[in-house]
């Protein structure tokens, strides 16, 4: 096959794009494997140093906080649980509410849809005090339920699922009905498998959304055992100003690299579904 100049240009652009994405991550990773002093005196590194195991071990297992009890590992787990809960429930709830809106043609379906849609204008940050009040009245502060629950409704996902369901031909529902499917089995046997791609995509977006929450966990949690990754990031940056010692730059890099792993894992697990759905539309 002859390679055309246009293809070469396209590839150069693509390679530049890849470098733009990968190089900062590589620098962070490489820098996380040196001594903090080296980084502070010589700047960031492109090659792997000899402190890799030590730095990561320290970040993961060193107990911090006022109580000297919470470790970074615990924070990763907390964030993972929170993001997983938010993403799962968001997807389940939006898919089901979109199903109700599209297939059960009750009179209020349209007003209710717009009502859901309007909630896009009031993100959690805007309604944080009432939300906090409700959650604390329910006694859910310092719990995973409290971290997850106020974030599980999603107008965006409901909207996307609704648009998708609307493209599914009516005959499919009718045919399924004649085959003895009831409302529940149509959802499970048809809409869920047909919207696999959509579900995977939504799950990824919502996972990242949940994982990167900062303000809500900050307000919600007083017990350090519920601290999350993003809160930890704040802590590891402010720590050095307490004047104890040199800033632990290498460990910060290690922390950042570690904090990327859970979302990356989710993408890696779901990408097969995701890409398969993108290249073959089955409708």
């Amino acid at each position: 096959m002859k390679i055309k100049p246009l293809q070469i240009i396209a590839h150069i652009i693509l390679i530049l794009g890849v470098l733009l994405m990968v190089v900062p991550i590589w620098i962070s990773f490489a820098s996380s494997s040196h001594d903090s002093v080296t980084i502070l005196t010589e700047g960031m590194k492109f090659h792997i140093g000899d402190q890799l195991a030590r730095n990561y071990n320290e970040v993961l297992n060193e107990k911090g906080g006022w109580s000297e009890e919470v470790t970074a590992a615990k924070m990763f787990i907390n964030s993972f649980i929170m993001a997983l809960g938010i993403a799962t429930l968001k997807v389940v709830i939006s898919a089901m509410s979109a199903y109700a809106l599209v297939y059960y043609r009750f009179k209020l379906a349209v007003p209710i849809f717009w009502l859901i849609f309007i909630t896009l204008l009031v993100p959690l940050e805007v309604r944080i005090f009432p939300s906090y009040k409700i959650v604390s009245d329910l006694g859910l502060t310092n719990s995973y339920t409290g971290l997850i629950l106020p974030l599980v409704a999603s107008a965006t996902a409901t909207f996307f699922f609704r648009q998708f369901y609307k493209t599914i031909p009516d005959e499919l529902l009718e045919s399924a009905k004649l085959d003895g499917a009831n409302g529940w089995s149509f959802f499970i046997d048809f809409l869920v498998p047909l919207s696999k791609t959509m579900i995977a995509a939504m799950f990824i977006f919502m996972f990242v959304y949940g994982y990167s929450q900062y303000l809500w966990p900050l307000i919600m949690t007083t017990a350090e055992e519920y601290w999350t990754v993003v809160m930890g990031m704040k802590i590891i940056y402010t720590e050095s100003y307490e004047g104890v010692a040199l800033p632990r730059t290498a460990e910060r890099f290690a922390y950042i690299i570690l904090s990327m792993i859970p979302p990356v894992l989710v993408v890696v697990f779901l990408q097969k579904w995701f890409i398969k759905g993108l290249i073959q539309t089955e409708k």
Partner: protein
Amino acid sequence: MSFLDLKNVTKIYPNGTKAVHETSLSIDEGEFMVFVGPSGCGKSTLLRMVAGLEDITEGDINLDGKLMNEVDPSERDVAMVFQNYALYPHMNVYNNLAYGLKNRGIDKETIEQKVNDAAKLLQISDYLQRKPSMLSGGQRQRVAMGRAIVRNPKIFLFDEPLSNLDAKLRIQMRLEIKKLQQKVGVTSIFVTHDQVEAMTLADRLAVINNGIIEQLGTPIEIYDNPKSLFVAGFIGSPQMNFLDGNLKNKTLSAEGFEIKDINSDFEGEVTLGIRPEHLSQSENALISLKVELVEQLGSDNLVYGQLKNKKDFCYRCPGNQTIEKGSNLSLNIENNKYYIFDKSTGKRVN
């Protein structure tokens, strides 16, 4: 009461469209009924009411002795083949066939056997593992049929299932559907706008126009004895020739000729209908046709031309006759096979 009984069934859509008017109809067990009519006449609506996919505005539908009006489609035990097949895109052919059985709680071995039997009957055994998107139009059609057959329902409903196929396949599938229905013996309703399809498939035919059954009968009855102008024009290909005329004292005077001793006491403006195939050439006959175009179908010739009064007219003759363009033919009506309709109401009067 017969197997399927429609009594004064009316359908008015929420937007006010009256799609079906007080229709009554009985279908016997094992019968192949065809609803035929132009697009928009309400055939699909009638069929979908039988399936339970549309609410019945007024009237009753009884299936196998049970009132169906309020019964959910999933409980009616009817199967339907849709125009675009509506196969389940994410399931392979096997699961497409098995899905309805699974929902009925039938055990795995029985399902497997039933699916395999149906697949063999329809010659789709080789594609059981394929997804619908990997099948040709004809194969999809078979899968849709298989999905209906495998459940052994009380009644098959077909909504123009052949209209997405090319002409040759359509004829082939038409034949197969008929054979299959005879073999399986299930009561069937088949909806089509194609009168040839209707004629060839039906045990009995309901010609529908504007939400009303204009005529009900066997294909031959309807062809031989159309009760209205609409039915006469709709059934038969090429279409029946229609001429204006006047009936008085049992004598019909059309433009250019007269027919005496007509078996009707009607007097007034009428339309005379003559099928192209009910004409023959003879000396000094009634009708004189100036030939403009000849379509040679091999077995037959379709001769198109004009009468003296410039009216278009068609004559069908055996293919072995040679007919010159521009010649004048003199045609007689064979065996008094002509139809006279009241011009104002369209009702047959002879």
